[in-house]
């Protein structure tokens, strides 16, 4: 059971940022996420106390806090962009939007691991066993597919599950993908038993970045997996919602699946997604009551809206899992650890928070702060050094490294407002240390596919997508396996060893310790990706929207507890 080759990690997204990558419909999911946003306390089990700035506050809600729900009603949600197709399979980046959208609503899954609890929640699987580190056996409960041709509401079997997983593996993966890199095989032992074997032990196997990915763990009927006539137009699953209609990927309407495996769920009759591409128009629609929930772009919008609507709405906040970073390519001058350390000292994270998100966020270490169980505690010396801002010490380090102050270093960024603003702030901060920086804005597609994707940069600043578990944020630091390196073209055996040790540790308590150790090593080695902050997201729903669940983030739509208390 030695190490095996596996690919590098990239974007593994369940929910794109509010600022939407490529204008996809993932904001629809974010809109629904607004329903589940309620301020959450720090996890009481964590020994870390999140530092600085504003922290979200409020009670954790599990969907039952509003009492027994009333069935009926249709929830109206904003859809940020039309889905290119209803087909959840490749080409990779263009299947991401609908893959997530449908995976969160129309398709069912064997299990799901919420970020806030880290506890595997069984969905279609009624039992999960791991007789050895390489093998997972899932026993499935009873469920049926939606009553649409050619499936006609038949039972879901283990063969459907196995075939679906294998179908997803046929496509070029979007980012790091467990299906390609870790899964060895998946078979249907019988109608109700699925057996998964892995190439090597993998601690994160059940999480939403791996085998529990809400996109690529979707269960579809076997007979339509290669039906390229049906798949682009319709989606047939066994999830709580049936795809009732759409206007070429826009204005999607979902109806309650009456034969869902959980009786009396979902409570709502349906969900209407209304295409509103513009944020201003979306806010206007929310204020006018045309939609029932909304995700704000910042605290100011949230406060203004609360002032305008008062008790009619409930505003909630939640620490986001996406985070801003400055990535340095591992080539001179950044091959010198002193230079990387110096650049980190030049970054004033508190100032960045104030300027960019009105102070509404938390500083990010090697692991973004939303992963509360796993982040280093505030009193950790390495983390304190990571967050330290000291221009004088930075200059000393640069002088010791014989840094060439006359050379202008390019900082590439996409033209997305968030990335552009971050880059401008970083430029001004680096220039205080005498570093000459030239900003190079690029179109998002070009930046993503060429500059970042081909490691064609000296420095680049951007917003990482939200990752549901610590695996992917750590794997960005992982060096090369085989012919591919990470974006930074960086490899450090100590970092690799620490990250991989965490990924293979099956005992949770020990894994938490190893994840923390990996973060310390990343800091000590000054790995060339400097994380800046994660912001706090604000969302609102009308007060008649009940049954919210906290901390599920983009996966809030899994919950079928939402109901409408309208007279």
């Amino acid at each position: 059971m030695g190490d095996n080759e596996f690919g590098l990690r990239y974007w593994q997204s369940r929910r794109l940022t509010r600022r939407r990558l490529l204008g996809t419909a993932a904001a629809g999911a974010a809109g629904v996420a607004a329903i589940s946003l309620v301020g959450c306390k720090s996890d009481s089990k964590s020994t870390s106390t999140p530092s600085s700035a504003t922290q979200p506050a409020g009670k954790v809600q599990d969907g039952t806090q509003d009492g027994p729900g009333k069935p009926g009603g249709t929830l109206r949600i904003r859809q940020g962009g039309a889905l290119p197709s209803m087909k959840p399979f490749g080409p990779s980046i263009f299947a991401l939007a609908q893959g997530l959208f449908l995976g969160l609503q129309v398709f069912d899954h064997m299990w799901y691991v919420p970020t806030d609890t880290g506890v595997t929640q069984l969905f279609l699987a009624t039992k999960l066993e791991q007789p050895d580190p390489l093998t997972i056996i899932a026993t499935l409960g009873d469920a049926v597919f939606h009553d649409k041709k050619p499936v006609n509401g038949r039972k879901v079997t283990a063969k459907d599950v196995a075939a679906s997983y294998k179908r997803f593996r046929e496509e070029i993966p979007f980012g790091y993908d467990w299906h390609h890199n870790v899964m060895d095989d998946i078979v249907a032992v019988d109608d109700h038993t699925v057996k998964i074997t892995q190439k090597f032990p993998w601690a994160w196997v059940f999480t939403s970045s791996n085998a529990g990915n809400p996109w690529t763990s979707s269960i579809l009927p076997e007979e339509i997996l290669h039906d390229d006539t049906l798949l682009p137009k319709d989606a047939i699953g066994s999830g709580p919602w049936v795809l009732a209609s759409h206007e070429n990927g826009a204005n999607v309407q979902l109806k309650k699946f009456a034969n869902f495996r959980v009786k009396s769920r979902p409570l709502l009759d349906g969900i209407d997604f209304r295409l509103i591409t513009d944020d201003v128009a979306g806010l206007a629609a929310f204020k006018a009551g045309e939609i029932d929930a909304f995700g704000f772009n910042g605290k100011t919008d949230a406060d203004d809206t609360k002032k305008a609507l008062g008790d009619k709405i409930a505003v909630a906040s939640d620490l986001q899992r996406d985070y801003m970073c400055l990535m340095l390519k591992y080539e001179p001058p950044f091959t010198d650890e002193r230079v990387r350390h110096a650049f980190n000292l030049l970054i004033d994270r508190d100032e960045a928070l104030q300027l960019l998100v009105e102070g509404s966020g938390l500083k990010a270490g090697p692991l973004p702060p939303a992963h509360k169980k796993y982040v280093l505690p505030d009193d950790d010396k390495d983390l304190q050094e990571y967050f330290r801002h000291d221009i004088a010490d930075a200059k000393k380090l640069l002088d010791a490294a014989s840094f060439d102050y006359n050379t202008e270093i390019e900082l590439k960024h996409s033209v997305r407002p968030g990335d552009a603003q971050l880059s401008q702030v970083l430029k001004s901060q680096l220039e205080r240390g005498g570093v000459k920086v030239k900003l190079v804005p690029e179109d998002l597609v070009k930046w993503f596919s060429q500059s970042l994707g081909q490691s064609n940069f000296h420095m680049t600043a951007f917003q990482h997508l939200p990752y549901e578990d610590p695996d992917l944020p750590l794997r960005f630091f992982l060096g090369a396996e085989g012919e591919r390196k990470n974006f930074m073209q960086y490899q450090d055996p100590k970092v690799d060893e620490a990250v991989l040790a965490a990924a293979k540790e099956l005992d949770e308590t020990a894994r938490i310790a190893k994840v923390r150790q990996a973060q310390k090593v990343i800091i000590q080695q000054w790995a060339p990706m400097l994380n800046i902050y994660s912001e706090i997201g604000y969302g609102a729903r009308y007060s008649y929207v009940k049954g919210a669940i906290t901390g599920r983030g983009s996966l809030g739509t899994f919950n079928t507890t939402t109901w409408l208390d309208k007279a």
Partner: protein
Amino acid sequence: MTRYALRRLSFLPIIVFFVSILVFCLLRVLPTEDIADVLGGQNATQEQKEQIREQYGLKRPIFPVSAGGSAPFIELHRHSQYGDWLLDAVRGDFGQTYTSGKSVREEFQRGFPASFEIVALSLTFSVIFGVTFGVISAMYRNRLIDYIVRIFAVMGTSIPEFFLLSLLIIIPSYFWRYSMPVGGYVPVYEDPWTNLRLFLPAALVIGIGASSALMRLVRTTMLEVLRSDYVRTASAKGLPQHTVIITHALKNAGTPIATAIGTGFIAVFAGSVIAEKILSIHGVGLFFFTSTQSRDLPVIQFLAVYTAAVVVVINLLVDLSYAWIDPRVKYS
């Protein structure tokens, strides 16, 4: 005139042909992202990228004719990217989008009604406001109304449409918590009220913006015409003022106004793209906008050719209108 019109229309395929070649060249010559990189993503192997290029026909030669290495130094290709595209286009097949694999023509047909309605309404308002206030401004030259109209015309030209459209959303929302209908295009025959609530305000904004230039042109032209001898004679004969203005003056000012309306159509056409984006109307404009963002070449190619064709037809209609406005104009 029919022969003239047919002769002008016969140029349409030639113009569209040359535009298509130019656009095709530009899209492939200018530095742009390799579609295999975009579609395949970072994890695609070279082999997979080659398969993508093969699938989208990008490994074929660009043109049917290319320079050869040996005599006769010309190579002919049975299958080429442009040649195959042209043959398919003649049959009405403009290929499939990269992002969704759907037919470009079907996507266009789906979005066309919404775009057509925006453009038609906006142009109507543009003409009504432009001509009406231009005439009023000319009639009451150097009076208060004239100054107001002229200031308004300058503002209309200066203020960007996207700003006005954003205000159109923000102001009603802020003061009255009103929002335009959301949930996509509803044809006027299905729900006239919802349709008008969605399109009328935006069309007004675009139309008023586009009318500014027309207003100024109408004013200038009318001032010239109103000084003419025949207008003075008509007034002296005791004809009512509205008859003098409409029957005599305006008709004689019609030719440059028709030209300006043709130009205004292009402005309205561009403005509708912004309106569709801001108002989330899933029309041709938004389709074009998102396709440009995602480098969907078949769509960009088709829409560039479509736009060229529209401009040619509009110019023809403007030229033909001259004969209707001015009986002295004869096409032979």
